[in-house]
């Protein structure tokens, strides 16, 4: 791993890092990766992941009162925390 790799990861994760932060993270990552690399020694050829998958959601049909999947929340508290809003809507920068 080198400083370019750290910059690439920071870009992917959308985190702006200072030059000395990058150096520090590079050093830490090398020590952490050195440790977790022992996972490579595990033999897993005959191992299939056995996820126990089932539907935990209710059927896609009108819900009865006790099936309603939400807790009482405050619209005002949500809107109050928008960094920017207009007429009760969240206002964001244009994307295109």
């Amino acid at each position, binding site marked *: 791993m080198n400083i370019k790799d750290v910059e690439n990861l920071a870009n992917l994760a959308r*985190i*702006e890092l200072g030059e000395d932060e990058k150096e520090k993270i590079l050093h830490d*990552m090398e020590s*952490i990766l050195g*440790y977790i690399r022992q996972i*490579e020694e595990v033999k897993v050829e005959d191992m299939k*992941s056995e996820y126990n998958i089932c539907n935990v959601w209710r059927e896609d049909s009108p819900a009865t009162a006790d099936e309603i999947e939400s807790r009482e929340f*405050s619209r005002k*508290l*949500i809107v109050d925390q928008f960094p920017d809003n207009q007429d009760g809507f969240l206002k964001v920068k244009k994307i295109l």
Partner: protein
Amino acid sequence: MIDLKNLTIKKARKALDAKEFSAVDLASAYLAEIKNKNKELNAYLEVFDDVLEQAKTADEMIARGESYPLLGVPLAIKDVILIKGRRVSSASKILENYVASYDATVIDKLKKQGAVFLGRTNTDEFAMGGSTENSAFGVTRNPHDVSRVAGGSSGGSVVAVAADLALGALGSDTGGSVREPAAFCGIVGMKPTYGRVSRYGLISMGSSLDCIGSIAKNSEDAQIIYNAIYGHDVLDSTSITDKTYPKSSINKTIGVPWDLVNGEGVDLKIKENFKQSILKFEKLGFKIKDISIKNLDLALAIYYIIMPAEASTNLARFDGVRYGLHKDGKNLLEDYMLTKGKGFGKEVSRRILLGTYVLSAGYYDAYYGKAQAAREILKKEFSKVFADVDFIITPTTPFVAWKIGEKSDPLSMYLADIFTVTANIVGVPAISVPSGFLEIEGLSADEAGKKLPLGIQFMAPHGGEDLLFEVGKKFEEISSASDSALGAI
């Protein structure tokens, strides 16, 4: 004056029902202690301004003849659990002024019982750490020695209980964050089976590992809190029911993974204390069995792949668009970069990058895929072992609480989780119970005789919470009996 030092939830409830003191009296006593000690200890990030009103409501409920196991009981809540209308920050700059718009399920349950919330407690930022040194709002200090860490990440909640600033508390445990600080501060911390307590309204770190746990002075109190918060919840898709796992019964057999306990990096005195604890169980008629779990020593590596992977995904949502910190740039991408760059602390950035790395093209199979497969293997190995033993015990931590600032290298801090992460990876419940004290060597004359607490950890099969509380109570009984016979341990 209420004797807070010797008060337990059970005793407080009796006194409240008998009108020996009111919920307002009790809350006032805690507020006075907080005023005295919190400045130094930094357990609370915020003490709520309506504590006495909450206590008054509890007194009205008591006056109407209502009685619940936590009615009027003052609790501390870790700053990662949402209470509607109150600030919750995950001890991060990125959520510093965030106000919760709904109640977490655990809070909803506690409110129905008339519990009193004293405040929100300090934690490592986004619960990432084992010492509460990663908080954006200062370190929490260990009440047994204020130059040392309290452990973490639920350090604030644990210190609140250990220093009599709350009667009980909620924490969260992703790799030991309830149990490790409990051991460092000499109290009880319990992490339930994965899915047993709803995560709805808990700020996520590693979603397949996160659990809300109870923190209390003894196992009985921890059980009272656990009983109040567990249960199936439609709002948490990973929630389990009473029927998910079969009930197990006790055959009085305890397994000890000696390979791991005798491994590198475990303090000799910790081992000595652990052996003493085992002797106590032998005297009680328990059979002690040496167990070997082949891939147990991989647990920490598995953990430090899966946890950052899940955390990097979970924390992607904090981008300055809808809530929390917002730093304005020239365009949307710059908004993201600046907001996250300013908002996240060092450890959080580190884990996000590590998670991004193990999930990125070319590394996914080698790290994340492999870790998931190894996790399945470990789960199988555990269920095999639990066919033969009721509990697996280890020390809770490989060493005692360290000096603040002593562990600057992240990997050395991660190694503190060596005994605790496995329960989260496998999903089994685990409890840490105090197992005595260690005298610190090489202290100056005025500090001589200072002692630091140690903990012992019990793991039980999935769904075995009640077994843990029972064994915890037994251990407390024999420990206090031998304490009074021998002075102290």
